[in-house]
C-alpha cells in the first residue's frame, strides 16, 4: 500500500511538472504581440529592444503591418489589449509605431542604419505602390512593388518632359478620367521598405493610354505617357493588373479599387 502511494505521488509530481513545462501556442502569439515600455522610454518586445527614431510622419512602412500592444511592465500578458497602447509593427518587425505617437521605434540591430537615413531628413528617391493579392476569398495579403531605377527614370521623364493637361479644378472635371481602366497610387519611397511619402502620382490607364496624374492644391493635372514608354509602364503596372485579374476571377466583375475590403 505504501509503495503504491509512493508511486502515485511520484506520478502526480511528474504529471504536474510536465504540465507546467508545456506552453500554449496562443500565449506565445500573444507574447509576440506584447511590447513593454522600458525605463528609458523605449520598447522591449520578446527580448528585443526597440529604440526611438527621430522620425515624424504617419507612414513608417510601405507595406503591410501587424498590430501589437505596448504597455507598462506591470500589465500582465492577458490584459495587454485592454491596458496597452495599440501599435503598428512592420511585417519584418523592424519598426514599431504606437498609434498616438508620430515617432517610431527601430529594432536595435537596424538602428544605426535607419538613423543615418532619417537624421538629416528623408530623401525619397524612388516610387512604390501597394496592392492586395488574393489566394482565395478568405485570404489576402498586402504586397508592395518598388519601381526599378529605369522605371523611376521613366516616371521623372514623363513628369518633366510632357505637356500636362488640366483634368480637374473646382468647377470642371474631365469625364474621361472619371472611369479609367485602372488607377494605382505611386508613393515616393526610399531604397529600404520603410517611410513612404504619400505625395506622389497616380498612374491611370484610359483606353490603353497611360497617364500620370497629380494634384496641385486645387488643380489636377495629367501627364500623358509617350507611346515609346508603354512597355515600361506595362511592367510597372503588371503586378497590380495581375492582382486585379485574380480578384475578378474570385469575386466576379466588381471594381477592384472600390471593393470594400
Amino acid at each position, binding site marked *: 500500500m505504501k509503495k503504491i502511494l509512493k508511486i502515485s505521488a511520484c506520478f502526480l509530481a511528474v504529471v504536474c511538472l510536465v504540465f507546467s513545462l508545456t*506552453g500554449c501556442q496562443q500565449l506565445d502569439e500573444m507574447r509576440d504581440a506584447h511590447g513593454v515600455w522600458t525605463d528609458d522610454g523605449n520598447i522591449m518586445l520578446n527580448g528585443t529592444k526597440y529604440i526611438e527614431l527621430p522620425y515624424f510622419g504617419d507612414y513608417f512602412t510601405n507595406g503591410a503591418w501587424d498590430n501589437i500592444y505596448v504597455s507598462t511592465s506591470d*500589465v*500582465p500578458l492577458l*490584459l495587454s489589449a485592454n491596458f496597452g497602447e495599440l501599435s503598428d509593427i512592420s511585417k519584418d518587425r523592424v519598426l514599431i509605431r504606437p498609434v498616438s505617437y508620430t515617432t517610431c521605434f527601430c529594432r536595435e540591430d537596424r538602428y544605426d542604419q535607419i538613423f543615418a537615413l532619417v537624421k538629416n531628413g528623408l530623401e525619397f528617391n524612388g516610387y512604390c505602390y501597394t496592392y492586395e493579392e488574393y489566394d482565395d476569398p478568405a485570404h489576402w495579403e498586402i504586397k508592395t512593388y518598388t519601381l526599378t531605377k529605369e522605371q523611376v527614370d521613366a516616371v521623372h521623364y514623363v513628369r518633366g518632359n510632357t505637356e500636362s493637361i488640366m483634368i480637374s479644378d473646382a468647377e470642371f472635371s474631365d469625364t474621361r478620367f472619371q472611369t479609367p481602366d485602372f488607377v494605382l497610387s505611386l508613393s515616393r519611397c526610399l531604397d529600404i521598405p520603410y517611410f513612404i511619402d504619400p505625395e506622389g502620382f497616380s498612374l491611370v490607364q484610359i483606353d490603353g493610354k497611360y497617364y500620370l496624374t497629380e494634384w496641385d492644391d486645387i488643380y489636377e493635372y495629367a501627364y500623358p505617357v509617350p507611346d515609346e514608354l508603354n512597355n515600361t509602364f506595362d511592367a510597372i503596372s503588371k503586378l497590380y493588373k495581375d492582382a486585379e485579374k485574380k480578384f475578378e476571377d474570385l469575386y466576379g466583375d466588381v471594381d477592384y479599387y472600390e471593393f470594400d475590403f
Partner: protein
Amino acid sequence: MVKKLFKHEILAFWRGWSLIQIALLATALFGRFIQLFENNTAVYDIVFGSTTFAYSILIMVAFVGTLFSGVTRFYKNLFTSEGYLTHTLPVTATQHIMVKLVTAVLFQIATLFVVLASACIITAGDVLVEVVKAIGYLIGEIYEYTGAHMVLYIVEIIVVTIVSLFSSFLVYYTCICLGQLSKKNRVLVSVGIYFGMSMVGQVVSTVLMTFTTFPVFEDIVMYFTDHPITAIHISLCLGIVITLILSIVFFIICRMVMKKKLNLE
C-alpha cells in the same frame, strides 16, 4: 439526531454528486493532456475543441445537477412514500428543512470549488500563471479605485452569494410544499406555481424599474451616478436584505405546510 440526519443526507447526496464531479475532473485532465500535443492540424483542433465543449457542458451539468439533486431529495424524502418514514423521526419540520437546505447549499459550494479546481487543471502551466497574474492585476486596479471599500465589497458579495444560494433552493422547496397541497398532479402543480412565482417576480421587478424613471426618483438616480462606490454598497446590502426577507418568507411557508398541511401520497 440532527447530526445523524446530516450525516445520512450528506452520504446520500454524495453518491450521485461525486460521479459528475469525477467526470468533470477527468475531462479537465484529459483536456490538459491533449494540449501536450498542440499543433496546427485539423485533428488537434477537432479533438481539443470537442474536449473543451464537453468540459463546458459538464460544468453546467455539475451546477444544474447539484440543484436538481437538492430539490428532488427534498421532494422524495419528505413528500413521497419515503416521507412516511422520514416524518416518524424525532426531528421537527424546521430541522428537516434546515438539514436538506444546508446540505444542498454545501454541495453547491463544493461544486463551485470542484469547477475551480478543474479550471486550474485544464489551464495548468503557462496559461494558469497568466490567468492568476491577470486576476491579481485587476484586483489591484479595483483596489486603486475603491480603496478599503474593496474589502467590504468582498464580504458583501460573499454574503449575498450565500444568501442567494439558500434562497434559490427555498424557492423550489416552497413550490414543492405548495404543490403538495393539491390532491392530484402535485409535481405539475409545483411547476405551475414556480412559473407563476417567476412571472410575478418579473412583473414586480419591471414595475420597480419603471418607477426609477419617475422625476421623484431623479435625485436618487443622480446620487447613485455621482457616488458609484456608495451605490454599489447600497445595491449589495439591499440585495442581501431583500433576498434574506424572501428566504425567511419561503422558509416560513415550507415550515407551515410541513407542520400543518402535510398530505403524503
